[in-house]
Structure formats: structure tokens, C-alpha cells
């Protein structure tokens, strides 16, 4: 049964995380300290925060490759709004609204045009990224400096602690709880699964497709905005290029987490565990002294191995059929010699 399979998968991921930390810890014992484990998440947890709602979108059969640009747009919006003199709380609120709006536009364009979500969000990726650059350029901030000058109360957010956890990690856990409840226990979550499995049957069953998709894509936008705000707080400056490199790792986390890229299956916990798996791998490699370059090769390699293994397991019949065909050709050739 599918749920059982998924639970097995998540178990395997959790196991892999433990193994991975142990291996790195064996080489560099400081990896095993709780402090290090917690604090190092601040580098990569932002990917996790956007990967979680991206699971919702992918489960519904869609895709959003504009999230990196939304992060950048949110980041620069924070800066611009702040420079305009608005109180910092209002800036954050408006930035989140901008993120939600970006997601909503994605959903409406996809529904209105009927075009493949990948292609639509390719367009909005350039649009939002371009808007970020535009804002950045018009406000006089050059690419690498960004807008700075934020008050300490703001920059402390990303570095602060809640319940003994770094704030970004805390938000991540809250997001896991919230989105897991939504995806797996709510009517909207059920709608997402069903739309992803067969949108025609969903239509004939009276499932509210438009509102459900708008919700999912807006969630991506909101979390992208939150990620952007956290990044601005973490770096202390608002730059338009923040988040560009998050897209591929986020999709990797969702796929590694057990979601079907075509929709209809997925798990929030799986995505969260996969995000941690990949994140800790990069951290661990750094701590062990492996050059940064190899980490992208390894995450890419990891993804391929995992996906190939999964494919072999689920397609073993077809593969056996092919294999027997190849064998019989070989035998035929040998016979006729």
C-alpha cells in the first residue's frame, strides 16, 4: 500500500541521515556536537523552507521554478520598503504579501492559459527575477552590496534562538507541522493529491481546482518570501540575487523525499528529511575538508542513484522482460554461428 511504502521510504531517509552524520563524525568529531548540528542548519534550512510548499505544488502535478526569483524579489522588496521608511514589521508583512501575490499570479496564469506549469513559471522566473533586478537597480543598490542598514532587532532574527533552536530551524519545524497537517489531513491536501493523479476525474468529481491550486502556489510564494526575509536578516543586506541557487536543491529535496514528479504522490516529512539529508551532506563535506565543488557532484550523484534504484524496483517486470529479450537474441546469435 502506498502509505506504507512511503513510511518505509521516510524511515530509510532518516536512517541515511543518521549514517551520514556518523560517518562525517567519525572523520571530524566536532560534527557530532549538538550545537554544531543545530547551528549549521542555518546555512541550508532556507532550501527546506521553500521545498516544503513546493511539495504541495508538485503533488498537484504542477511545478514552480520561479521560487528562486521570488526569494530574490522578496529580499530586495524588504530592502526597498525599509529604505522608504516603513516600520520593519510592516515591511515584513508587505513582503509576505508580495510573495503570496507572486504565487497567486503563477496559479492564475497556469489555470487561465492551460500551459504547462514549468513553462509558465519559466516566464515568471524571468519576470520576478527581472523585477528584483529592476528594483535593485532603480533604488541604486549595486549587485553585490545590496541594501543594508537594517536595525539590530531585525538582523537578530535569523541568529536568534527559540526553544534552544536557531530561529530558522524553528520556523522550518513549524512549517513541517503546518504543511504536513494541510497536505495529509485536510480537504485541500486531499484535493491536491487527487488533482495530481487525474485532473479530469477531479473535474468530474466537483473538486475545486482553481482555489486549491491558488492556495498551493501562494504557499510557495509566502514561504519564499519568508525565506527571503530570513536571508536578508542573516546576511544583513537585501540583495536581488539571493535564492537563485535554491531552485535545484529544493526540487531535489522534493523528489528525494518520495514525491512523484508527475504528481499524485508525495510527503512533507519525506521532503523535510531529504532536505536535511542533502543539507547535512554539504555541511559534512565542508567540515571534513572536501572542496566545495564536489558537493554539487555528490548531491547530483545521490539523486541519480536513489532515483535509479527506485526505478529499478518499480519497473522490474519490464526490465526482466527486456533482459530476457536481450538474452534470447544473444542465444539466437550463438545458435546460428
Amino acid at each position: 500500500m502506498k502509505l506504507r511504502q512511503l513510511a518505509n521510504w521516510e524511515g530509510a531517509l532518516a536512517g541515511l541521515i543518521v549514517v551520514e552524520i556518523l560517518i562525517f563524525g567519525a572523520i571530524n568529531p566536532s560534527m557530532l556536537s549538538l550545537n554544531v548540528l543545530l547551528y549549521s542548519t542555518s546555512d541550508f534550512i532556507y532550501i527546506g523552507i521553500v521545498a516544503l510548499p513546493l511539495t504541495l505544488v508538485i503533488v498537484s502535478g504542477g511545478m514552480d521554478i520561479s521560487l528562486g526569483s521570488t526569494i530574490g524579489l522578496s529580499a530586495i522588496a524588504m530592502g526597498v520598503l525599509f529604505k522608504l521608511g516603513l516600520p520593519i514589521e510592516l515591511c515584513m508583512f508587505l513582503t509576505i504579501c508580495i510573495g503570496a501575490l507572486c504565487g497567486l499570479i503563477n496559479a492564475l496564469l497556469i489555470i487561465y492559459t492551460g500551459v504547462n506549469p514549468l513553462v509558465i513559471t519559466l516566464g515568471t522566473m524571468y519576470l520576478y527575477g527581472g523585477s528584483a533586478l529592476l528594483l535593485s537597480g532603480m533604488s541604486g543598490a549595486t549587485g553585490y552590496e545590496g541594501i543594508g542598514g537594517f536595525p539590530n532587532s531585525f538582523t537578530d532574527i535569523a541568529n536568534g534562538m527559540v526553544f534552544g533552536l536557531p530561529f530558522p530551524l524553528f520556523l522550518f519545524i513549524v512549517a513541517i507541522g503546518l504543511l504536513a497537517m494541510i497536505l495529509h489531513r485536510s480537504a485541500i491536501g486531499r484535493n491536491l493529491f487527487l488533482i495530481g493523479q487525474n485532473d479530469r476525474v477531479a473535474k468530474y468529481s466537483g473538486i475545486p481546482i482553481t482555489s486549491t491550486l491558488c492556495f498551493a502556489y501562494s504557499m510557495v510564494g509566502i514561504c519564499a518570501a519568508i525565506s527571503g526575509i530570513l536571508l536578508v536578516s542573516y546576511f544583513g543586506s537585501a540583495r536581488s540575487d539571493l535564492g537563485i541557487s535554491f531552485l535545484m536543491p529544493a526540487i531535489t529535496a522534493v523528489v528525494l523525499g518520495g514525491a512523484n514528479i508527475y504528481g499524485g504522490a508525495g510527503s512533507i516529512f519525506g521532503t523535510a528529511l531529504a532536505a536535511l539529508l542533502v543539507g547535512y551532506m554539504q555541511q559534512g563535506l565542508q567540515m571534513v575538508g572536501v572542496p566545495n565543488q564536489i558537493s554539487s557532484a555528490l548531491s547530483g550523484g545521490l539523486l541519480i542513484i536513489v532515483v535509479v534504484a527506485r526505478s529499478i524496483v518499480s519497473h522490474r517486470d519490464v526490465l526482466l522482460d527486456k533482459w530476457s529479450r536481450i538474452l534470447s537474441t544473444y542465444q539466437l546469435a550463438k545458435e546460428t554461428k
Partner: protein
Amino acid sequence: MIVGMFFNNSHNYYHFVTGAQEITKYNAYDSEQLIIQKTNVHNRVVFGGKMDVSSSTTPSPDRELVRVQSVSKQFSGVEILKDINFLLREGQVHALLGGNGAGKSTLMKIIAGLLQPDGGEITIRGKAIKHFSPSTAHKLGIYLVPQEPLLFPNLSVRENILFHLPKTQEMELKLTQTLQALNCSLDLDSQANTLEVADQQIVEIMRGLIRDSKVLILDEPTASLTPKETQHLFAQMRKLKAAGVGLIFISHKIPEIFEIADNVTVMRDGCIALNEPIHAVNSNQVISAIAPQCKIDRSKQENGKSYDFQLTTQFHTADVVLSVDNLTGEGFKNISLEVKAGQILGLAGVVGAGRTELAETICGIRKPYNGHIQFGSQEISKLTFSERLQKGIVYLPEDRQSSGLFLDAPLSWNVRSMVHNRFGFWLKSPLELKRLNSYIDAMAIRTTEKDQLVRTLSGGNQQKVLIAKCLEATPQLLIIDEPTRGVDVSARYEIYEIIRFIASKNVAVVVISSDLDEVELLSDIVFVLHQGEQSGQLVGEKISVENIMNIAFGGDKETNHA
């Protein structure tokens, strides 16, 4: 190594690879020659020679085209084919019947080279075949016309039919001639995705005909054809028979089998249940071979069976639930009818008569051009599909696999899919399982696990799940489109009882069916639709298959003279 040289003399063309190390000539038949060439390096087996149907010697029914011996095949540990023997001779139409899951498609795919058998032997025209692929099957003259058309939507019709064939004047002429023989007017330059399903099916059949196949496998070719088109197809099949082609004809329609076939084979659960010449059997024997435990009980008696469905309706017996007034829409015109609570209205007609379109307009998927739809006392033409669903207008779609059920979702998800949005933000899992179990018990749905995927159920059980899904939405008006399509005979009668019970609870039921026996069995009133217009109406005693047929075709004579 020079790659290829094509000769084209008037009847045959040879395709071979020069530079080969070995050339073996092989005589499959007296009149034809196959040249098998193997290279030492590549073991590429290249067959040459086009099967020329028209110039072969007179077909002899003793010549075997396809001989299948002791073939078996299993998928994931489940045995789909067990020790199958099958024989097709020249000039023969061999009909193949069986319920869903009996293994017909698997056997045909093996013969057509799409699957490898696990055991057994296949002999094509006297030569045992060890290694098979679709292209070798083509070169041997075997062509499989699939059940669902597999056309290339963005290529033209011409390109679809002539795919991979040389584009010569000769071929073009042959194409137009074959089209004419089928009495078909297709625009060859139009894109395949603009065609209706019936036309797509004809294109698939054309693909088989144009390749001068020696063995033509037709998998349910008449599913979407009108009677006239079916007759044209049968005429072509008879011509091919006379020219020595062997045809395998898969169908669910027993009358057709008796009309066209020479031999009949029935498969059940992966074995051969019956294999006789057609004149040696009657239709009852065939039906009982397909499904031995079905009760052929055609009496319309009061059903004693009571089901534990929680059906409530605001309407009292004989209240008018649905009233359609002069409705015109996509595919139908000037329809006026009434359905009362507790009544079963049968909507009869041919595929393409407009019944599904009418049903979809009533439930809100399509928009009407003109006219009124009233539900109870309310005009509902402006309401959306969801709003009408909320009111209790429930539509059970014709194609359960593509519009009715989420095949990869668990049963409980499917059963609740129309209603889970009505009960607040959060789902109620224990309740869902309880509801599912109540339906499983009530309708005797055969399951193997607690909440399995719908895909793993048989056709009849899937249909019951679909009915459960519709019942869960507390219908006041239930429109069922083709209640027993693809359902084996034993489950059919169970479904009829269920429908009668639903009506007895004062739900207004509309049954759309192309099976006249079914319409006769179930309906209190029958409406006949022909080409989108009302042809006539039958009530009570007058309902019979002959009367329905008369209205459907007899009334037509009058409108032509109007």
C-alpha cells in the same frame, strides 16, 4: 558497410544490408521468399519481402498462419496466461472473447511482438519465432490494431497511416483506394487530434490494411463505430479473408461474432475455455464459457434485496425531480423530458446520438445553447457543476477509468471524492473507512486488502466503487452513463439490483445505455435519441427491444422525407 538498398518491383520490395557475412535464403511459402541476413558483428535479423496479398496462390484453409503452443506469461508473480494454445489459419476470421483480465490483450501483444512469452512456442507460417519485436512482427505481416487508437495527434492523418512507409505515388493511390473501399471520407491533411474517436479508430484500421498484413489483429474495432461503419468494416474483412489474410477479431459483442467469425475462442482467467468452429456453438454456450456462474435471470421481478445505503431525498414519490424543456446544446436539439422521483428513465440510442452530451449539460459540465432545465421547482441553467452537485444532481460518467475513478488512489479516497470538501477543513479518516466498509458490505465489492488502490479491482468491482462514490453524494437525481460497460456478466445483475433499489428510495434515476436488453430490463420509461433529437418515447408495457429499435431507425424514415 553500405547500409541499405531498396528495390521496388511491382509487387515486392527487398531491403537488405550489403557487406553481410552470411546470407541465408529461407522459403516460408512457395510463392514468397524471405531473406534473412545476419552479420557476425551485430546479429541483426533483417527480414525482407513485402507480403503480397493479391498475388499469392489461392488461400488454402489448411495453411497455418499463427500457431501458439503452450504459451505462458506472468507479471509480478501473477500468471496472466497459462498454457495457451491458439491457431489461426489463412482466410479465417477467428473471434476471441473473454471477460476483462482474461488475458486476450496479453496474448495478442505476444503475437504482435510487444511482449515476450515466458514459455511455449510461437510459429508464424511454419517458422518458429524465438525473438520477437514489433518491427519483426510487421515484417512478418502481423499487425495489431489496438483497442484505443494510438495515433500521433500532431501529425497529419496521411502521415499517421503511412508512417515509415515509402511515400510514393503508388502508395498514395493505394491509400485513397482503401479509404474509398471503407466508404470513408477523412481529410488526409487534417491533424489527427481533430478527429473524433470513431474516425481515429478507422485510421488505426487503415494502418493495418495499408501494410498488406497477412495477419490482422483487431482489438474491439467496433466499439465506437456506427452500424453502417461496422458493416463496411466487415465487408473489408471478408475481402481480406478471400485473399488469404487471417484475422483475429476481439469483441464483447456476441451478435457480431456470429455474423463475421469462422472460429471462436473464449478465454477465461488465462486459459482457453472454449475453442470451436462457429457453427458448432450457440450464444448461450459462448456466454457461459465467458462467465459460468452468471444467472441469466431476465425477469423484472421486484427485487427482494435491500441495501444498507443511507439515501435520503427531499422528494416524494412521483414528484417531478428533473424537467427539461426544449433544451438545445452541444450535440442535441429540442429535448423535453421529465423524470419523477422513484422512476428509472432509460435513454437509448446509438453512440453519437447525443445522450452523454445531454447528461453532461444537465449536470453542468457543458453549457446549453437554448432551453430550460428545472430541478424540482428551481431553474438551474445558471448553476455551476459544483453547485448542482451540492443540490443532489449526480453524474456517473461513461468512462470510469478516465473520468470516474482515481485509479491510483485508495478506495476510501475515491468513495469520498465528491463529498470530502463538504465537511470542513479537516478530513475525518475513521469516518471515511467506515463509510467505505458499509459500501463494501452492502454491494459485495470483492477486495483483497483493507483500503487498496482502485486499479487493482476488476471491472465490475470498480463500477460498484463508482456507484458508491455517487451514492455518497446523496443524489436526488442520479444520471448513470453506461452502467455495465466492461463489467462481466455476473456483476451486471448485481448492479441492476442496486440501481433498482436506489430508485425505490425515491431517487430519480436516468440510465443511459447502448445495450438495449439493459434498457428494457431497467426502465420505467424509455426515451430514444437519434442524432441529437428525440425519436420517441415508450412507457411501461410498450418497452421492448424491438420497439426501441423501430423508433430509433424507423422514425428516421419519416424525418428524411420532411
